[in-house]
């Protein structure tokens, strides 16, 4: 080693500790923020958060008004029914002392007669008639006629012998069942609509029993069954189509995509009506079958479960094909080829390689179709007849025809719970992170 190099080395060795210290100080001051830096960084983060929030504000406002508020109202409505409590509050207070057996006291009847007269003049007796009638069929006309009878009676007369007048107006006021119906309709918060929605009711002692007529549970089951059938059908029809499209040339795939999307572009009513034209007794299908001699008289194709499932499968098919296609488009040919080159038969390769890889699309499509079909309304209403009705048709019936909004709300809430439950199950067993919607 030359003396110059030696000198350089000793110098470097001397300088090293100092250099090391400087290095430590440097890294410290580089890696930590001073106060001003920290304030700047925090402001930056706040600004970005605010920006992100502003982006979603319009949707948030819309959702609160169009989604959160109505659903909350619906949930509330299904347990909240103040009509009777508002109409005959004093009668209800007096009825609290009644045992529920035999006739209530005359004071109750007196108070009720006075309430009836007031309602007759306010023209609110109809509301009460509806409410009592729900618990006790036939009471609507009784209540209305009684109200008419009491309208002209003087207040003094009612105060003196209101009970007699009431009993003369209709003898059903002498039955304990009538008064029980009024008393039971009294509470502002009630579970009775939910009980009705699952075909249950409270008996006289407050126990929960089955109702005589079983409607809703059966309807829920049927709705689920139909949704499952429709989902399976769209899978069976959609999977091969999506597979073919995903592996066709893009020109052919785009052409086929038009056919898949065609149902989206035509009005729902037109599509459904065209099914009516096809399936009705004198429709295309039946006349062809009769012309071919397959059958002598028209087969019942329309206004039943069959037509509902058929039409809904047609309408919901794009919801299955689109996510499937999107996922399959991303699966390169080479996976299947690799599996086949390793000795797997094409079918086995599909089952062990392609199917698991396309599962996110399949489950997304299935979930979409299933959830949409569970709550589907228009198609069953148009082509379902009585046989093909689904739960949403009954909900609509209670809102539009029977005017029982509370029951409709209870049925709707149960449907919501059912969907959330199914989604939870799906998440448990398939996993939502496995979903791919586009």
């Amino acid at each position: 080693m030359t003396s110059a190099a030696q000198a350089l080395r000793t110098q470097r060795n001397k300088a090293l500790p100092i250099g090391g210290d400087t290095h430590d100080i440097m890294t410290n001051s580089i890696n930590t923020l001073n106060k001003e830096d920290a304030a700047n960084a925090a402001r930056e983060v706040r600004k970005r958060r605010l920006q992100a929030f502003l982006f979603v504000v319009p949707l948030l406002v819309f959702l609160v008004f169009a989604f959160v508020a109505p659903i909350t109202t619906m949930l509330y409505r299904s347990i909240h029914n103040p009509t009777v409590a508002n109409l005959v509050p004093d009668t209800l207070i007096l009825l609290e002392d009644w045992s529920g057996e035999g006739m209530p006291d005359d004071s109750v009847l007196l108070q009720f007669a006075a309430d009836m007269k007031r309602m007759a003049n306010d023209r609110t007796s109809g509301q009460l008639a509806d409410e009592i009638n729900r618990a006790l069929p036939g009471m609507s006309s009784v209540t209305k006629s009684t109200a008419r009878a009491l309208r002209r009676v003087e207040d003094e007369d009612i105060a003196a012998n209101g009970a007699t007048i009431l009993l003369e107006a209709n003898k059903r006021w002498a039955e304990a069942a009538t008064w029980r119906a009024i008393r039971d309709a009294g509470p502002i918060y009630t579970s009775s609509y939910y009980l009705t929605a699952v075909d249950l009711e409270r008996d006289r002692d407050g126990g929960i029993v089955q109702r005589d007529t079983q409607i809703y549970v059966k309807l829920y089951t049927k709705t689920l069954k139909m949704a499952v059938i429709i989902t399976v059908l769209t899978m069976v029809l959609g999977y091969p189509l999506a597979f073919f499209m995903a592996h066709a040339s893009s020109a052919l795939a785009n052409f086929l995509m038009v056919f898949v999307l065609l149902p989206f572009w035509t009005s729902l009513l037109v599509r459904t009506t065209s099914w009516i034209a096809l399936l009705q007794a004198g429709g295309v299908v039946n006349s062809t079958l009769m012309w071919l001699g397959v059958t002598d008289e028209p087969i019942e194709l329309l206004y039943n479960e069959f037509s509902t499932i058929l039409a809904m499968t047609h309408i919901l098919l794009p919801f299955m094909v689109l996510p499937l296609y999107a996922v399959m488009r991303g699966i390169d040919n080479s996976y299947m080829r690799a599996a086949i080159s390793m000795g797997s038969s094409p079918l086995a390769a599909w089952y062990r390689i392609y199917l698991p890889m396309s599962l996110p699309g399949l489950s997304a499509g299935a979930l979409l179709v299933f959830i949409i079909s569970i709550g589907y309304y228009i198609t069953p209403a148009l082509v379902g007849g009585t046989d093909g009705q689904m739960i949403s048709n009954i909900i609509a019936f209670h809102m539009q025809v029977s005017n029982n909004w509370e029951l409709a709300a209870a049925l709707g809430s149960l449907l919501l719970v059912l969907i959330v439950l199914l989604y939870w199950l799906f998440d448990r067993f398939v996993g939502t992170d496995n979903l791919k919607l586009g």
Partner: protein
Amino acid sequence: MNDVETETFLRFDNVKKSYDQKNLVVKGFDMQVKEGEFITLLGPSGSGKTTVLMMLAGFESVTSGDIVIRGKSINKTAPNKRNIGMVFQNYALFPHMSVAENLAYPLSVRKMPKAKIKERVAHYLSLVELSEFGNRRPGQLSGGQKQRVALARAMIFEPMLILMDEPLGALDKNLREQMQFEITRLHKKLGFTVIYVTHDQTEALSMSSRIAVFNDGVVQQCAPPSELYERPINAFVADFIGENNFIPGKITSVRDGKATVHTDGGDVVTQVSEGLPASGSCRVSIRPEKLFIHPTTHAHDNALKVRFTTRIYVGDFIRYYFALPDGTDIIVKVLNDLSAPEFEEGEEAQLLWLATDCIAFA
């Protein structure tokens, strides 16, 4: 002829392929491959090399001709019965299976007993130096690791032939070189036959026993790398493999396999390509690294007068750009040492080289 027949492992017999029933993508492909050879199909994209590979794997049908393995035509054999391993550019590792499950797949398809599968998978994992990674998903591996798994998966069922379709195309330069080394190592160790498709000529030159250069559906030349580089059969190969200068000129005489060509920068003596006419115009091809700038201590028998245009500093070497009087660019590569000369723009210079280092093409 009989000897060749027994030695030949894989043979392409006038294989043609058309997709649209009008145009041929592969126009009469002939090749004979010996067992254990590393054959590369090299060519620009759309030259038909991948189509040949797909026909060999069975994913594309053969329009006419024959593909023969060990004397038996496999044209009608289903792809899953061909026992050919394949490595893809995108690795094609099954994302829902672990690395070990990926490797076990071809074995489980063959109904091998579980214990034996486990043993074999462990062996091949150690072979590609990924023993610790058996339980990982492909998504958790780096590109190079994925490619090694794909390689192991193609080898694990001991196929008679392994096809590789641009397997290193998705890797960056450093990894690519590592993997080239890795593939060569495994090939030497296990001795399988490889048909390798690439458009990267350095890859082809550094790995192959023989390279078939494709262009426009036809094999231009099929030869070992050094021969391909030193003795290209035509201008396309000369241009496609490595860098090349083409000096236009007129043939004045051809004698004893040497031609004298008159160019703009002076007369040069060159080797003759097959089918070169005795007169008329031609192009003399010469590699940039075979040219020397006057003065030089290297042996030379040709000289060309040129003008300096510019030089580019690359690092390990320097690229000089010269121009002939007619405007033709000439590139010279000079090692970056003290002898690399400096020029003024437009300065005259003289390029020197050996007649054996250049070839005249028609």
